[in-house]
């Protein structure tokens, strides 16, 4: 088993840092380019969700990102203590967005679901959101 975790400010410029960190962590697994890119996309979507929705880009807040490799399974966990998601079922529907005015596509959860083998989203209003993606490699 091999694992890492990082914590960073809820700023959008840290999204590239987050997916780059996981990408580097996985480098010596020599993954197929497509799978490697899908994992980068998973990190990007989950972290964007925490920064833009959970914390509404409040730079005093922090996002926790964990990545674990165990056998042929990569697990990504993204945790925030932000506003939380009111209705997870609704949020997971394609094209649903509470921030259409910001030109959000509402496809974040759709992409998460498509690119991982198992997606768990737990959230409580005012407490925060945890997204766990498991992907076979």
């Amino acid at each position, binding site marked *: 088993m091999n694992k890492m975790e990082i914590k960073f400010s809820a700023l*959008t410029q840290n999204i590239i840092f987050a997916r780059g960190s996981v990408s580097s962590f996985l480098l010596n697994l020599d993954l197929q*380019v497509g799978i490697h890119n899908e994992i980068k996309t998973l990190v*990007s*979507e989950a972290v*964007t969700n925490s920064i833009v929705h959970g914390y509404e880009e409040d730079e005093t807040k922090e996002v926790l990102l964990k990545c674990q490799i165990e056998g042929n399974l990569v697990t990504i966990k993204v945790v925030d203590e932000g506003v939380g998601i009111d209705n997870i079922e609704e949020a997971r529907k394609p094209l649903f967005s509470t921030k259409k005015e910001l030109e959000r596509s509402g496809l974040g959860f759709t992409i998460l679901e*498509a690119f991982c083998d198992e997606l768990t989203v737990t959230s409580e209003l005012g407490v925060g959101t945890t997204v766990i993606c498991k992907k076979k490699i």
Partner: protein
Amino acid sequence: MSLNVKLVVKKRTLLIRLRGEMDQHSTENFKLRLLEIIEKYKIKNLVFDMKDLAFIDSSGIGLLIARYNQLKTDDGEVIICELNDNIERIIMLSGLYKICVIKENLKAAKGYLGIA
């Protein structure tokens, strides 16, 4: 800079060459520049050349959908070309291929618009 953009105006078409990564952060700055040029040159069509685009997520897709909605009121179109496998996967998954015109390369995109 995580996203490098090269812009060329040809008649009322804006040719956009993307290099780097399109996420929430890089998309925000790019959007403002794009809106300014679309207004200034009365742009009707957009051509996105994605040959050197290494990464795109739902934030980037959001920008493309919004520009499609903006331009269609003037019968304009969004044309996307030079998709690599990773980018193509997201374009297909997002349904973007149903509303944008996909062309293999820049030449084909220009030919489609009659500005070759």
